[in-house]
């Protein structure tokens, strides 16, 4: 085959392509995955009954905004990593900083708490199920975002998979926060972070195999 013939074929009747494909595809993945995650949370776990009251508590907002921040910067990172030659740059900081913040807050709360309540602050009532629940609620968004990445061109598939995991994990944890009864920073610093780490690790592990092109 002559390269000129290939070029002639590719250029014949070529269509205009829409702009901002990466953001649109990943946005579409969120639009498909997020309602499924909310539905899963609402039907399997149930929205907490005192949700309206909870909106008045600062710790509830911490529990909501820490994962949301991870989700937003996860989106920025993944739509950048989906395009060849574009590095995520500072987006990683936006994913790591909320984790450092909740760790710091958790340590401060533990240090200032009396010794006999520390175990409760760490374990709460739901530590056994929290990690699994967050990963499960993230799953629809995770699957949809990998499907979107397959239509794009990540040249660093492990990083792209991890970023897709971070976006899904942050979104999933924020959705789970609408159900979860826990409010202690040490609890969030351990179980929420582990729950969110699972999709990130899964993305890094399956990215190189799944996202080849």
């Amino acid at each position: 085959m002559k390269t000129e013939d290939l070029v002639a074929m590719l250029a014949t009747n070529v269509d205009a392509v829409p702009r901002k494909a990466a953001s649109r595809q990943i946005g579409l993945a969120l639009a498909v995955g997020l309602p499924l995650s909310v539905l899963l949370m609402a039907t399997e776990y149930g929205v907490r009954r005192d949700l309206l009251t909870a909106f008045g508590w600062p710790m509830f907002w911490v529990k909501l905004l820490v994962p949301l921040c991870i989700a937003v910067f996860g989106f920025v990172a993944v739509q950048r990593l989906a395009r060849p030659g574009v590095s995520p740059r500072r987006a990683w900081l936006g994913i790591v900083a909320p984790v450092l913040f909740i760790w710091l807050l958790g340590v401060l709360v533990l240090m200032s708490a009396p010794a006999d309540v520390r175990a409760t602050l760490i374990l709460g009532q739901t530590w056994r199920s929290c990690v699994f629940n967050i990963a499960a609620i993230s799953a629809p968004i995770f699957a949809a975002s990998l499907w979107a990445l397959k239509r794009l061109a990540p040249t660093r598939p492990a990083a792209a998979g991890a970023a897709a995991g971070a976006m899904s994990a942050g979104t999933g944890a924020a959705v789970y926060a609408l159900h979860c009864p826990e409010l202690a920073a040490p609890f969030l610093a351990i179980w929420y972070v582990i729950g969110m780490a699972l999709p990130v690790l899964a993305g890094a592990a399956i990215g190189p195999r799944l996202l080849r092109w």
Partner: protein
Amino acid sequence: MGMSDAEQLLRDLCIRGLDGDAQAYHAFLLKLGMHLRAFLSRRLFGWPDEVEDLVQECLLAIHNQRHTYQPEQPLTAWVHAIARYKMIDFLRAKAGREALNDPLDDDLEIFAESAIDASDTRRDLNGLLDTLPDRQRLPIVHVKLEGLSVVEAAQRTGMSESAIKVGIHRGLKALALKIRRRE
């Protein structure tokens, strides 16, 4: 012509191509082919025969992934990232196949020179197209090789216009996969 002039020219042609200007897009791919040939032969001097294979693989990948280019990014950064990705993929496959052979020949310099010219590759476009299912092969043959419009191709094949477009899109992706696997 300096590097930034080449960048400017290629980028203009590319953006016009992305907006549907087939003539500009054709010129873009031809110039890009030359650029890729130089880029890859500098790096693959041990495998001169493979350079043109890889140039074609990169051109097809660039075409299939052209929606991931955004004009605010330097075009060469985007192109080189794709070329590097394809080259590493190729070297990995090569390392798997030829783990025990020394791939470097004695007369490297001669090969490095000769590789600058475009050469045919052993792969055959029609042969590759024949391996695709009709719903992908026919749209590509009618629209991309014979130059019929999508409407005409739809009439000719009895397929819908959107099926023609999807067939072209999926067919070119399938071709890229076959080339990558060196089938």
